[in-house]
């Protein structure tokens, strides 16, 4: 499904901003996620507890290049992550704008091309732009991760029609809604639209009870995917009575 890796859970969970390492650990378990995102930062902070959580949770690790603003920074970070985490997976983020944290599509494609050629399996954080998506596929990406909304904003699927178009256009490419989801209902909506997975962090980490929220998102993702597989009824403009008219009494 994702670079020949089959996952039974369609929820990927970020590991930042939890109230404590213990809550993070329980939230990962409660979510059912099989992929967690991680980052690289300067040595000095206490990373020991976090390393233990990574090792114990049994999840596949997806390192990110969060905070990088140029292709060069992102490429260097990816190489450091590959060595440190022992994986060729990389969540490629090249940020273009400080307020929206919107990806810089030009630097993103440039970095993706270099990394794919170097044997990385790239998960690019992108917009819903179809041409950028095409360029990323040409660069060697086999997954695309369009944003739902700006990172950490909790706005949900801000450009639903464009995301629907993207889903239809990249029929055979795994698509992951990454960033901007604030509520389980939004995650379920993404899954109902046929997206392959969702990736989120803040909505769980900043919930009053992150462990319960992790479970809620896990169930929403499962329900949404089940609904997609079951086939949603078509939307209609007018009412269509569901109870049969045949056999109705004449009481007027």
């Amino acid at each position, binding site marked *: 499904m994702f670079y020949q890796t089959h996952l039974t859970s369609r929820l990927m969970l*970020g*590991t*930042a*901003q*939890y109230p404590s390492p213990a809550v*993070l650990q329980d939230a990962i378990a409660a979510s059912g996620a099989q992929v967690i*995102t*991680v*980052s*690289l*930062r*300067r*040595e*000095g*902070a206490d*990373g020991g507890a*976090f*390393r233990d959580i*990574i090792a114990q949770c049994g999840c596949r690790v997806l*390192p*990110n290049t*969060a905070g990088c603003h140029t292709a*060069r*920074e992102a490429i*260097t970070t990816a*190489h*450091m*992550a590959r*060595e*440190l*985490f022992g994986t060729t997976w990389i969540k490629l983020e090249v940020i273009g704008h400080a307020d929206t944290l919107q990806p810089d599509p030009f630097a993103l494609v440039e970095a993706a091309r270099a990394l794919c050629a170097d044997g990385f399996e790239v998960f690019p954080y992108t917009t819903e732009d179809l041409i950028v998506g095409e360029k990323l596929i040409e660069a060697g990406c086999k997954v695309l991760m369009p944003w739902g909304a700006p*990172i*950490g904003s909790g706005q949900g699927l801000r450009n639903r029609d464009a995301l629907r178009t993207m889903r239809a256009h990249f029929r055979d490419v795994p698509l992951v809604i990454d*960033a901007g989801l604030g509520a389980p209902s939004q995650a379920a909506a993404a899954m109902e639209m046929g997206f392959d997975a969702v990736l989120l*962090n*803040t909505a769980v980490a900043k919930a009053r009870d992150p462990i319960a929220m992790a479970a809620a998102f896990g169930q929403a993702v499962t329900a949404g995917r089940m609904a997609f597989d079951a086939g949603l009824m078509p939307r209609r403009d007018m009412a269509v009575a569901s109870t049969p008219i045949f056999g109705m009494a004449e009481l007027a």
Partner: protein
Amino acid sequence: MRIDLNGKPLTTRATTLTQLLAELDLDAASVATALEGVFVPRSRRDQTRLTAGAKVEVLTPMEGG
């Protein structure tokens, strides 16, 4: 010799990346290194010489979204 380690000045006697990590008492397997913004793989830390003013980054796993 003074170098720049993770954005802070540091006086060190180390002349290679391997020596620097040892001097800092860091587990060589749990960090990743870069010199002047270029990744230095574990296997090349021995041969990677430090000069005065060198900009070194030593990174470790951290939480991320």
